[in-house]
C-alpha cells in the first residue's frame, strides 16, 4: 500500500515535471513568436477539486510592468530557501532559460529589454479569462482571494475600495481574507464586508475589547465541491495594528493565534471536512512555520510577501502555494481527495501575459466603468523617466529613491524615510509618468508627508526596530515588509546580529559626516502610523518634484552596505 506521503512525493515530481517542461516550452515557443493563450492555460485536469488562488492585487485593474526583487535575503532556517532565491539562482533552481518568458515573469535580470519583448502583465479582465477557462474545465472550482485587494490605486482611494469590490464581485470569488483593506477604516470595512456575496474569513480577526473572535468575520467556511467537504480557513495579516495605523480600526485585534488556528482546524474536521485549505495573509516564512506547527492543514494559499513560486513548497504533508502580486499571476491547484484525505496534487503558476491572454469583455466593461470618472485626472502626464523605476528589494528600489529625493527637496529635509512596502508597479526607461503611476506606488489612507526633527540616536533606534521585523530569525516575529528606505543617509547592516547591534556607520550623505547620536536632524517621511500626522499628501509631493524635473533620473543607490547575506 502506498502511503499518503508517497502519493504527495509522486505528485510533486509530476508537478515539477509539468512545471519544468511548461517553462521550457514557453521559451521555445516564444523564440518562435508563438506563445499563445492555450500554452499558458494548458493543464490536464486532475483529481476532483480545483482551487484558484489570486492575492495581493493592490487594486491593479489594468496591465502593468512589475519587476521582481534582486535582493530578498532569508535568515535562520529560511536562508537560501525559496522565496529567498532570486535571479540566476532562481532560474537554475527551476530550470528556466535566460531571456525566456518565465525569466521575465519570475526574475529581475534584463528587465527592461524583456519587458519590451514580452509586454505588460496582469489586468483583471485577463485574470477573468483564465478563471473562466479553469471553470470551463471544472465548473465548481473554488476562487480564493488572499487579500490586499481594496488598496493601491487612484480609483481605489477615491471610491474607498468600491471599484475593487465591484470588479471582484464580477469574478465571483468564494472567499477572501484581509490586510490593507482595514486601512479604509473599520466603519468602511464593516460596510463593505456586510455586502459581500462571498465569505469574509479570518480566524485571527478578534474583537479587541473582549479578545474573542469577531462576529463580522468567520474563521472558516465549509464548501462541498466534487463530492468533497472542504473547509477554507482564513488568516488575515497578523500584525496590522503594528505595521498599519491601529487607530483606524481600534475595534479589531489580530495576531498569529496559532492555538486558535489548531482549534479551528480540529473543529472543521469534526464537522466532516475532508480537505483543509488555509487562505493566508501571513507571509511565506510565517506560513512555513505554521504548516509545521499546526496539524492537519492540506494546502496553504500564501499571500502578503508577494512571492511567486512555480512549484509548491512541501512542509510535512502540507503544500504551500505562492501566487505573486499585483495581478501578475494566478495559481491553479488540482487535488485528488479520496477517503477523507488529499492523495495528490497538480499545480501551475499561470503568468498573466497581457498581450497573450485575451481580456474578458464583460469584466473589461466593469473595469472601464470604475475608471471612467477618473480617467482624465489619472492620465495626466506629469513627467518622464530615464531610468527603470521599481520598488522590490530588501533595502531600496529606484521608485523609493525617487520618492526620497522628492521628500528631501520638496520638504527641505536632511534625511528622508519611505516605508518598506512591496506593492507598486514598475515604469520602463523612456516611459511617461502619469498621475496614476504615482498613485500606484503611493496611494493610501494615511499618506501625509510629515517633517520633524529626530536625534541621530532615535534614527538609529528606528532602523534597528525595522531591521528586526525583517531579519528576526523566528518568522513569527517578522512583519513581512522590507527595510525602511532611507534618503540622504547611508548605513551598514549586519543582518545576522541581534536587535540593537545590526546597524552601524550612519553617515549623512550631503556632508559625509557620521550621524551624531545627540544631534537633531530634519527628517521627512510618509505613512506614519501615528494619529494626527500633518503634512501634504505624498502623491502631491512626488508629483510636484517630478513636474519640476520634467525628466527624472535615479542614480544607482550604494548607500546601504549589507554584511552577512
Amino acid at each position: 500500500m502506498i502511503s499518503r506521503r508517497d502519493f504527495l512525493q509522486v505528485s510533486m515530481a509530476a508537478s515539477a515535471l509539468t512545471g519544468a517542461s511548461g517553462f521550457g516550452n514557453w521559451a521555445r515557443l516564444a523564440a518562435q513568436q508563438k506563445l499563445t493563450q492555450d500554452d499558458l492555460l494548458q493543464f490536464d485536469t486532475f483529481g476532483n477539486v480545483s482551487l484558484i488562488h489570486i492575492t495581493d492585487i493592490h487594486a491593479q485593474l489594468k496591465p502593468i510592468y512589475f519587476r521582481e526583487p534582486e535582493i530578498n535575503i532569508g535568515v535562520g532556517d529560511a536562508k537560501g530557501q525559496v522565496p529567498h532565491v532570486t535571479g540566476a539562482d532562481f532560474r537554475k533552481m527551476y530550470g528556466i532559460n535566460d531571456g525566456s518568458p518565465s525569466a521575465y515573469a519570475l526574475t529581475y535580470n534584463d528587465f527592461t529589454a524583456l519587458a519590451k519583448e514580452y509586454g505588460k502583465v496582469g489586468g483583471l479582465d485577463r485574470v477573468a479569462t483564465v478563471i473562466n477557462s479553469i471553470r470551463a474545465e471544472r465548473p465548481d472550482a473554488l476562487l480564493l482571494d488572499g487579500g490586499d485587494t481594496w488598496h493601491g490605486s487612484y480609483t481605489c482611494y477615491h471610491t474607498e475600495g468600491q471599484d475593487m469590490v465591484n470588479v471582484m464581485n464580477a469574478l465571483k470569488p468564494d472567499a477572501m481574507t484581509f490586510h490593507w483593506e482595514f486601512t479604509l477604516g473599520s466603519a468602511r470595512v464593516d460596510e463593505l464586508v456586510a455586502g459581500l456575496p462571498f465569505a469574509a474569513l479570518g480566524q485571527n480577526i478578534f474583537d479587541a475589547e473582549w479578545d474573542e473572535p469577531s462576529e463580522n468575520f468567520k474563521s472558516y467556511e465549509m464548501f462541498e465541491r466534487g463530492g468533497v467537504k472542504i473547509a477554507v480557513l482564513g488568516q488575515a495579516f497578523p500584525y496590522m495594528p503594528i505595521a498599519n495605523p491601529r487607530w483606524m480600526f481600534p475595534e479589531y485585534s489580530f495576531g498569529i493565534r496559532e492555538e486558535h488556528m489548531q482549534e479551528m482546524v480540529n473543529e472543521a474536521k469534526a464537522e466532516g471536512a475532508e480537505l483543509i485549505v488555509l487562505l493566508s495573509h501571513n507571509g511565506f516564512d510565517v506560513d512555513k512555520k505554521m504548516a509545521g506547527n499546526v496539524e492537519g492543514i492540506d494546502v496553504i494559499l500564501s499571500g502578503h510577501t508577494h512571492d511567486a513560486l512555480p512549484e509548491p513548497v512541501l512542509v510535512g504533508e502540507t503544500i504551500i502555494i505562492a501566487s505573486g502580486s499585483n495581478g501578475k499571476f494566478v495559481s491553479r491547484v488540482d487535488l485528488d481527495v479520496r477517503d477523507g484525505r488529499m492523495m495528490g496534487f497538480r499545480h501551475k503558476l499561470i503568468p498573466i501575459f497581457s498581450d497573450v491572454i485575451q481580456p474578458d469583455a464583460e469584466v473589461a466593461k466593469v473595469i472601464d466603468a470604475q475608471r471612467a470618472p477618473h480617467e482624465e485626472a489619472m492620465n495626466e502626464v506629469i513627467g518622464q523617466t530615464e531610468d527603470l523605476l521599481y520598488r522590490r528589494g530588501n533595502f531600496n528600489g529606484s521608485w523609493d529613491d525617487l520618492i526620497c529625493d522628492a521628500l528631501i527637496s520638496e520638504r527641505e529635509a536632511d534625511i528622508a524615510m519611505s516605508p518598506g512596502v512591496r506593492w507598486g508597479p514598475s515604469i520602463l526607461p523612456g516611459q511617461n509618468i502619469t498621475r496614476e503611476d504615482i498613485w500606484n506606488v503611493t496611494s493610501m489612507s494615511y499618506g501625509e508627508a510629515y517633517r520633524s526633527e529626530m536625534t541621530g540616536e532615535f534614527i538609529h533606534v528606528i532602523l534597528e526596530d525595522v531591521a528586526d521585523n525583517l531579519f528576526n530569525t523566528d518568522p513569527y516575529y517578522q512583519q513581512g515588509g522590507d527595510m525602511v528606505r532611507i534618503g540622504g543617509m547611508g548605513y551598514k547592516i549586519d543582518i545576522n546580529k541581534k536587535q540593537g547591534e545590526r546597524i552601524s556607520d550612519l553617515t549623512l550623505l550631503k556632508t559625509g559626516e557620521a550621524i551624531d547620536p545627540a544631534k537633531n536632524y530634519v527628517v521627512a517621511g510618509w505613512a506614519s502610523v501615528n494619529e494626527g500626522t500633518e503634512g501634504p499628501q505624498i502623491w502631491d509631493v512626488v508629483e510636484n518634484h517630478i513636474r519640476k524635473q520634467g525628466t527624472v533620473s535615479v542614480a544607482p543607490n550604494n548607500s546601504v552596505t549589507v554584511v552577512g547575506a
Partner: protein
Amino acid sequence: MEFSRRDTLALGLGAAALTVLPIRALAAADDAIAAFTGGADVAEGGVTLTAPEIAENGNTVPISVEAEGAAEIMVLAMGNPTPGVATFKFGELAGAHSASTRIRLAGTQDVVAIAKMADGSFAKASSTVKVTIGGCGG
C-alpha cells in the same frame, strides 16, 4: 513614521529600561520566584501561557494562563521595573484552572507563568513578547 516627543521619550525610556533594568528587574524577578517556590525545582511544561508574539499595544497586552490541577499560578513580566503581575489562586472546587488579564510591558521581554500544583510541585512556561515601533509593513 512620525514620533511625538512623548513617544520619543517613552521609547527612549524603554530602551534605557532594556539596557539598565534587566539586572535589577531580573534580580527582583528571581526573588519573587524564590519566594513563591521556596527554592523548589520548577519543571518546564504543564502550564499553558498564551501571549502575542508582538504586542499590538505594549500598554495593554492580553495574556492567559492555564494549568490543570494548579492551586496557584504566578505571572511575571521579567523586564518590568516591578516584575510581579498577578498570582491567581484556585480553590478546591474551581472548575477551570485558567485566568486571563492584560498587562503593561516596558519593552520587549519574557513573560513567565509559574504554577504551584496541588501536590506542591512547580511548573513553568515562558513567552517572549516583543514591543516594537512598527509602521513599515507591507
